[in-house]
C-alpha cells in the first residue's frame, strides 16, 4: 500500500461505495431533468450530494476531510475549475472548496472525476454530521499530543450514512484538535474536541458541546474533561442521540444543539448523556487501540530528515533578506522536528478575494507540495493553505516560488488575513456583499510592513446572520445587513475563537460600506495611538474597553 501523507488511503470498498452513490445521484439528476422528480423532491437529494442552487448557478461544495488533501487531489480541483467552472475555486471556513458556476447536468461527471482521486461532496450539506474539521498544523505542530486526523477519519467513518444521524434536527459540526491549544475554534462547534495526554500514554479528550455562531452565537461548554480514547465514539454517539431525541424540530432557528444545551443546562445535558451511555452496548462502540492503529496505518508518515545546518541556513537567509524575514515571521509555525517548519500560504493578496484560488495557482500549489512537503496540503478554516513539513533550508526557495504565482503575501494572523464568506455576490441567503469590503480593507492595509506594525488583528466578514465568515469570532467582525434593499455593515469588537473564546460585541449602528472601511481605518489608527508597548489589538481592547474605539469609529458619522 502506498498511502498518502496526511490522509486516509481508500480501499476497494470505499471506492465501490462512492461509485454506487454517484450512480444513485446520477439517476436522480436524470429524473429531475425529465420531470419525474419535482424541485421539492430533488432538493434534499442534491443537498445530500453537496449541490446547492445559488444566486447565479448551481454551487458544488466538495468535502475535504479534516482539511487535508494530496497534490493529486489539488490538481483535480484545478481540473474541475477549468473544465466545469470558471477557472477558480473558493476555499471555505469549513476547510471545503466550493465551485460557483456548476451545471446540474454535468454534476455526475464532476463527482466521477472527484471519485478518481477518492473525493466526494457527501456531508457538505443537509441536517447530518458535516465534514469533520481539524487542526491545520496536525501531525506537524510541536505542541501536539496526537495527530487528530486519525481520530477525525474515525469520526468520518462513524458518521457517514449513520442511520440515526442522517436526519438530525439541524446540521451538526464537529471539530477536533490534537493539541490542548485550540486552533479549530472548538468552542464554536456543536461538538469541539481537544486532545491532551492521558496517564497511560494514550490521549484523552476534552469535549465541548453546544457552541456555535450564526443567529445565536454561544460559546460551547465543557461536558467532559477527559474522555478516554476507547470511550470517544460511545460518548459522541450518546451526545448526538440526546440531541436527536430532544432537539427542536418545530423552529429552524432553535434547532441547533446549542439551543438545547442552553434550555437544559450543561449539567442536565451531561446527566442525559450519562444515562444514555448506561443503556448503550459500550462494547459495540469501544474504540480499541488496535482499531485506532488500523486506521493510523492507512496514513503515511513523512520521513523527516534535514541537514544539521538547516536552521542556520534559514537564519542566514532571513538576515540578508528583510522581505523574506517578514514573511517568515507571519507565515510560519514551529514544527515538531528541529530541521523543519510549517509554512502557511496566504490566499489573501492585497485587494484579492479571500479564499479564492485559480486553477493555475492550484496546480502550482500541488507542484510545490510535491517538491517541498511530501505532496500534502491542508486547507485552513481561515481560508489559507498549509504546507506542513518544509525543510528549513528550503523555505527560501519555496517563498520565491510562491512569489511567482502571487501567493507570498506576508499577512497570516494580521489585518490583511481577512476571512470572508462569498456574500451576496454568490450566496442566495446573504444580505450584503462580503467580498468587496474585504477587498477594500485588504487593499487599504495591504502593505506588509504596516501589517507587521499593526500586529495580530483578525477581521472576519459575514454577509448575513448565518455567520459563515465567523464575524462573531473576529477581533473586528463585520456583519452585512439589509436596510431597505441596501447594504450596511455592523461592527463587532473583541471576538476570538482560540482558548479563552469570546463573542464580539456590537460597537454601534451599522454603516454603509465605504463608511465602514473608513471607520475601521480610524479604529486601527486609534489602537496604534493608545496601545502600550507589546500590546496586541485585543490586549488594548481588554485594557480600555470599546469606548475609545467607538469614539474613533463614529467620530464623523
Amino acid at each position: 500500500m502506498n498511502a498518502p501523507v496526511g490522509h486516509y488511503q481508500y480501499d476497494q470498498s470505499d471506492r465501490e461505495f462512492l461509485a454506487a452513490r454517484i450512480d444513485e445521484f446520477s439517476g436522480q439528476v436524470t429524473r429531475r431533468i425529465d420531470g419525474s422528480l419535482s424541485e421539492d423532491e430533488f432538493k434534499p437529494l442534491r443537498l445530500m450530494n453537496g449541490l446547492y442552487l445559488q444566486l447565479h448557478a448551481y454551487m458544488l461544495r466538495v468535502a475535504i476531510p479534516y482539511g487535508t488533501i494530496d497534490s493529486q487531489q489539488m490538481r483535480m480541483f484545478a481540473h474541475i475549475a477549468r473544465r466545469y467552472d470558471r477557472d477558480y475555486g473558493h476555499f471555505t471556513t469549513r476547510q471545503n472548496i466550493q465551485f460557483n458556476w456548476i451545471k446540474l447536468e454535468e454534476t455526475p461527471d464532476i463527482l466521477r472525476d472527484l471519485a478518481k482521486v477518492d473525493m466526494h461532496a457527501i456531508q457538505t450539506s443537509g441536517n447530518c454530521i458535516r465534514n469533520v474539521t481539524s487542526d491545520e498544523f496536525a501531525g506537524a505542530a510541536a505542541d501536539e499530543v496526537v495527530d487528530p486526523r486519525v481520530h477525525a477519519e474515525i469520526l468520518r467513518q462513524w458518521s457517514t450514512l449513520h442511520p440515526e444521524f442522517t436526519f438530525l434536527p439541524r446540521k451538526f459540526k464537529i471539530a477536533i484538535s490534537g493539541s490542548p491549544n485550540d486552533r479549530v475554534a472548538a468552542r464554536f462547534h456543536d461538538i469541539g474536541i481537544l486532545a491532551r495526554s492521558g496517564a497511560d500514554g494514550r490521549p484523552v479528550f476534552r469535549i465541548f458541546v453546544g457552541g456555535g455562531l450564526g443567529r445565536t452565537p454561544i460559546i460551547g461548554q465543557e461536558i467532559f474533561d477527559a474522555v478516554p480514547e476507547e470511550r470517544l465514539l460511545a460518548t459522541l454517539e450518546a451526545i448526538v442521540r440526546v440531541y436527536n431525541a430532544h432537539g427542536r424540530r418545530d423552529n429552524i432557528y432553535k434547532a441547533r444543539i446549542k439551543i438545547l444545551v442552553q434550555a437544559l443546562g450543561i449539567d442536565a445535558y451531561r446527566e442525559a448523556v450519562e444515562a444514555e451511555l448506561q443503556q448503550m452496548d459500550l462494547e459495540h462502540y469501544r474504540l480499541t487501540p488496535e482499531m485506532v492503529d488500523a486506521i493510523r496505518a492507512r496514513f503515511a508518515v513523512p520521513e523527516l530528515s534535514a541537514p544539521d545546518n538547516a536552521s542556520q541556513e534559514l537564519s542566514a537567509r532571513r538576515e540578508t533578506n528583510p522581505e523574506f524575514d517578514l514573511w517568515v515571521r507571519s507565515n510560519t509555525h514551529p514544527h515538531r522536528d528541529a530541521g523543519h517548519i510549517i509554512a502557511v500560504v496566504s490566499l489573501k493578496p492585497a485587494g484579492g478575494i479571500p479564499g479564492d484560488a485559480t486553477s493555475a495557482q492550484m496546480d502550482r500549489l500541488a507542484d510545490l507540495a510535491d517538491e517541498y512537503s511530501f505532496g500534502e496540503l491542508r486547507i485552513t478554516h481561515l481560508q489559507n493553505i498549509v504546507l506542513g513539513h518544509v525543510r528549513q533550508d528550503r523555505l527560501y526557495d519555496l517563498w520565491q516560488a510562491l512569489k511567482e504565482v502571487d501567493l507570498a503575501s506576508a499577512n497570516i494572523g494580521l489585518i490583511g488575513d481577512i476571512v470572508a464568506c462569498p456574500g451576496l455576490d454568490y450566496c442566495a441567503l446573504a444580505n450584503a456583499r462580503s467580498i468587496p469590503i474585504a477587498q477594500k480593507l485588504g487593499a487599504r492595509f495591504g502593505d506588509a510592513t504596516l501589517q507587521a506594525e499593526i500586529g495580530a488583528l483578525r477581521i472576519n466578514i459575514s454577509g448575513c446572520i448565518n455567520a459563515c465568515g465567523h464575524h462573531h469570532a473576529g477581533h473586528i467582525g463585520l456583519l452585512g445587513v439589509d436596510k431597505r434593499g441596501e447594504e450596511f455593515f455592523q461592527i463587532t469588537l473583541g471576538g476570538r475563537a482560540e482558548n479563552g473564546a469570546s463573542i464580539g460585541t456590537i460597537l454601534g449602528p451599522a454603516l454603509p460600506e465605504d463608511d465602514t472601511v473608513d471607520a475601521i481605518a480610524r479604529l486601527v489608527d486609534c489602537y496604534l495611538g493608545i496601545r502600550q508597548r507589546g500590546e496586541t489589538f485585543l490586549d488594548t481592547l481588554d485594557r480600555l474597553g470599546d469606548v475609545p474605539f467607538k469614539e474613533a469609529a463614529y467620530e464623523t458619522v
Partner: protein
Amino acid sequence: MKRPVRVGAGEKLVLTANRLLDGRIVWRDHDGHWAARVGAAEKLDADAVSDVLEEAQARAQQDGVVGVYEVAVRDVDPPEPVTVRERIRAHGPTVHPEFSVEAGQ
C-alpha cells in the same frame, strides 16, 4: 409563506427564475419565454402579476426553469431591479466584471 413584494411609486414587477439545467438566471419576456437579460423582461402591474406568476410556476418544468418569483423593478427601460440582491442577479457578481451578464458570460 413568501411575503408579497412591495411595489413603490414608479416601480413595476418582473418575473425571474433559474434555468434548471445550469442554474443561470432568466427573466420572463412578453411572450412567456425566458431570457438571459433583465432588459427583455415584461414589466407587470402589481394587480396583474399573480395570474402570470401562477401560470409561469405551473409551466416551470416544461419551460426548464426553477424557483419562479416576482421582483420589483424601476419602471425604466431597461428595467432595473430595486434591491441590491436582484441587481446582482440581473448583472452578475460585482467582483468579477468579466462574468457579468453584459459581458456575455
